[in-house]
C-alpha cells in the first residue's frame, strides 16, 4: 500500500506493520500506548493491538532495555522505546554491557532481535538534557547496528529492517524531522543494513550528512548550484555498519570531502570516517577533508544560541566553497 505520511506517522506505520506481521513482536516504552507517545509517533497502536502487545512501562529505562533483552531471550522480538535519546545515559549499562555483548559473551548461544528507538537531536528548544544527538555515544560499541533515518520513507523502511533483524538495532528518530512528509510503500523490499543513499549527485564536493544535517546539505546544494557548484550529498543512513564504499565512489568523482555532523566533533562518526578515508584512500583527496560539526559545548536552550550551535546550510555552502579553493 502506498500512502503519504509524515516521518512521525511512518514510525507508527512501521511498528504497526511489524506487529501485524509477526505475533512474537511486542512494543513497549514510557507512554507509548495510552498517550500515543511523547511525540505522538505511536498513536493508535494500543487501540489496534491491545495492551498485551503494546505496553506502557514505568519510567525505568534500565528495566525497559533489560526487559527487551530478557524477552528476546525468551523468544519475543521486542521493540522498545527510550523517549529521548539523552536517556541513554540512564540505561547505558543495559545497552552497552548487556544488549551489545550478549551474543558475543555467550559465543552465539543468544541472539537478541531487539529494536531500540529513541528521539534524537537538537533544534526544537528542549535544552541540554533533551536535545543531544546521542548516536556518537554508541559508535564505538561493537554489537549494535545504528541507524539515523532522515526521511519518512527511510524511517519506515529502516524500522522494518530493524525489527526483522536478528541482532540489536538502535534507531535514532530525529525530533526536528517529525513533520516531514513522504511516500510510504509498505510493500517495498526490506532495506539492507548499512546501505547509504546518494541523495543528490554532483561532481565538485562530496558532502556526507545525516538526519537534520542531510536536509541542510541539500539546501546548501541548491544555493551552490546557482553558482555552478554541484555537490554530491550522501546520507549514510546507518552509522554501524558504515557504507564507506559509497563515499569512496563519490570521492573518485569529486576529490573533496565535507562531513557534517550534528554534535561536537570529538569521538564522533564524522571524524572516524575522515580518519578511515585518509588512511586507506589518501590518494583520492585534492583538498584536506573537512569536518563541520557543532561546537564542543552542551546544547543551549535559547533559540539564537541553539541556531548557532547547529551547523547551518550557509555553513555547509561556505565549507564547500573553501574546499574548492584547493
Amino acid at each position, binding site marked *: 500500500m502506498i500512502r503519504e505520511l509524515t516521518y512521525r506517522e511512518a514510525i507508527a506505520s512501521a511498528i504497526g506493520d511489524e506487529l501485524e506481521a509477526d505475533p512474537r513482536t511486542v512494543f513497549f516504552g514510557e507512554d507509548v500506548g495510552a498517550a500515543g507517545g511523547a511525540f505522538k509517533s505511536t498513536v493508535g497502536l494500543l487501540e489496534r493491538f491491545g495492551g498485551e502487545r503494546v505496553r506502557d512501562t514505568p519510567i525505568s529505562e534500565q528495566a525497559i532495555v533489560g526487559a527487551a533483552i530478557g524477552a528476546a*531471550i525468551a523468544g519475543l522480538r521486542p521493540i522498545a522505546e527510550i523517549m529521548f535519546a539523552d536517556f541513554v545515559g540512564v540505561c547505558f549499562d543495559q545497552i552497552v554491557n548487556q544488549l551489545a555483548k550478549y551474543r558475543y559473551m555467550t559465543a552465539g548461544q543468544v541472539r537478541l532481535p531487539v529494536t531500540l528507538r529513541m528521539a534524537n537531536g537538537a533544534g526544537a528548544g528542549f535544552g541540554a538534557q533533551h536535545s543531544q544527538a546521542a548516536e556518537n555515544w554508541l559508535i564505538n560499541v561493537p554489537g549494535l547496528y545504528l541507524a539515523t533515518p532522515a526521511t519518512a520513507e527511510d524511517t519506515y523502511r529502516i524500522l522494518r529492517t530493524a525489527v526483522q533483524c536478528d541482532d540489536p538495532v538502535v534507531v535514532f528518530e530525529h525530533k526536528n524531522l517529525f513533520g516531514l512528509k513522504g511516500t510510504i510503500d509498505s510493500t517495498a523490499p526490506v532495506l539492507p543494513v548499512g546501505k547509504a543513499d546518494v541523495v543528490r549527485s554532483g561532481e565538485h564536493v562530496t558532502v556526507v550528512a545525516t538526519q537534520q544535517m542531510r536536509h541542510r546539505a541539500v539546501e546548501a546544494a541548491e544555493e551552490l548550484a546557482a553558482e555552478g557548484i554541484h555537490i554530491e550529498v550522501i546520507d549514510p543512513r546507518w552509522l554501524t555498519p558504515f557504507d564507506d564504499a559509497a563515499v569512496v565512489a563519490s570521492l573518485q568523482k569529486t576529490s573533496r570531502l565535507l562531513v557534517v555532523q550534528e554534535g561536537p566533533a570529538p569521538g564522533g562518526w564524522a571524524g572516524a570516517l575522515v580518519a578511515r578515508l585518509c588512511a586507506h584512500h589518501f590518494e583520492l583527496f585534492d583538498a584536506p577533508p573537512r569536518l563541520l560539526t557543532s561546537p564542543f559545548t552542551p546544547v543551549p536552550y535559547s533559540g539564537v544560541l541553539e541556531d548557532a550551535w547547529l551547523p547551518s546550510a550557509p555553513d555547509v555552502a561556505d565549507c564547500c566553497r573553501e574546499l574548492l579553493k584547493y
Partner: protein
Amino acid sequence: MTAVYEAQARCEDIWETLLDSMLRIRYFENEVKALFGSGLVRGSTHLCQGQEATVVGACSRLRPGDMMASTYRGHGAVLATGASPTAAFAEILGRDPGLCGGKGGSMHFTDLTHGAIGSNAIVGAHLPIAVGAAFGAQHLKSGAVSLAFTGDGSTNIGAFHEALNLAGIWKLPVVIVIENNHYGEYSPLAATTPISALVDRAKSYGIRGEVVDGNDVLAVRNVVGEAFDRARDGNGPTLIEADTYRFEGHSRSDPGKYRPPGELESWLARDPIERFADLLKEREIAGTEIVEAHRQQVGAEIAAALQAAKAAPEPQPERLYEDVIG
C-alpha cells in the same frame, strides 16, 4: 508449609540429586582455587563455596523451558542447572569447548540448553533481564518461570529496584533469590544498607517476600517451589532472602580479613553439605558410608572433567571476530 511440600521435604526421591549437585559445586571450586593458584585462571574468579544449598535448592525446582540468571559468583548456579563441569572448566581455562567458547570466562557462565541464560559481571544488571525473560514467558503463555539469584549488595543498585517494580506492576512469573552472604564485596551489609531485613524491599514493590535459611537445601527447595507454583499460576513474583555465607573472600585477591574473628568458623559449622549429610543420617535416609560413596563418585567425576578440559583445544584466532553481529 503445605502438605505437598512436607512430603517433598522428606526428600527420599531427590536427596541424591541435591547432595551430588552441592558436592559437584564444592569440588569444582576446589579445583578452580587450585587452577587460580597455578596461574591458569585469567583475571579473577568469585567462589560461592558455602552458598551451595541456596543455588542447588532453588535450581532443583527448574523445569525444562524455565530460565535462570545469575551473578558473576555464578559457578554454582549454572552447575546446579545441570551444565557440564567439563565445559565449565574449559570456559575458565578459556578453551574452545567451554560453555561460551572461551569468550565469557568465569563471570559469564551461560548454558541455554539448561536454561542458564547468563551470569552477569555488572551487579544487578541481570535482574531487568530476568524480569524480561519472565515477561516473555508470560506473553507466550509458556508456563515457564524466570529465576534470578542476586547478592545482598545488589539490593542497593538502581537496576534491582527498576526490575522489582516492573515485575510487580506486570505480575511477572519471576522469582528473585537474594543470596545474602552479608558482604557486598569487602563491605559488611550494615555499613552499606540501612535495613537489616533485605526482604523488606519486596513490600515497596507489592511483591511477596520470603526469608529462608540459605544453608538448608530442603528449606530453599520448599520456599522456591511454592514461589514457582504461585508464579506459574499467574500470582506474580516473589523475592526470597536466603541467609548464607561465602567461605572465601569476594574474589581471589581478597583474603577476607575484614571478617570478625570467629565468624567464618561459626558458618563453617553450618556448612550446607555437612548439614545435609547429618540430616540424611538422622532421618536414616543415607548413612556416612553412602554419603562417602557419593563424595568419592562426584570427586572422580570432577577430576575427570578437569582432565578433559585441560586437554581441550584453545579457540582458533578467527573466533575473535565471530558472533559480534550479522
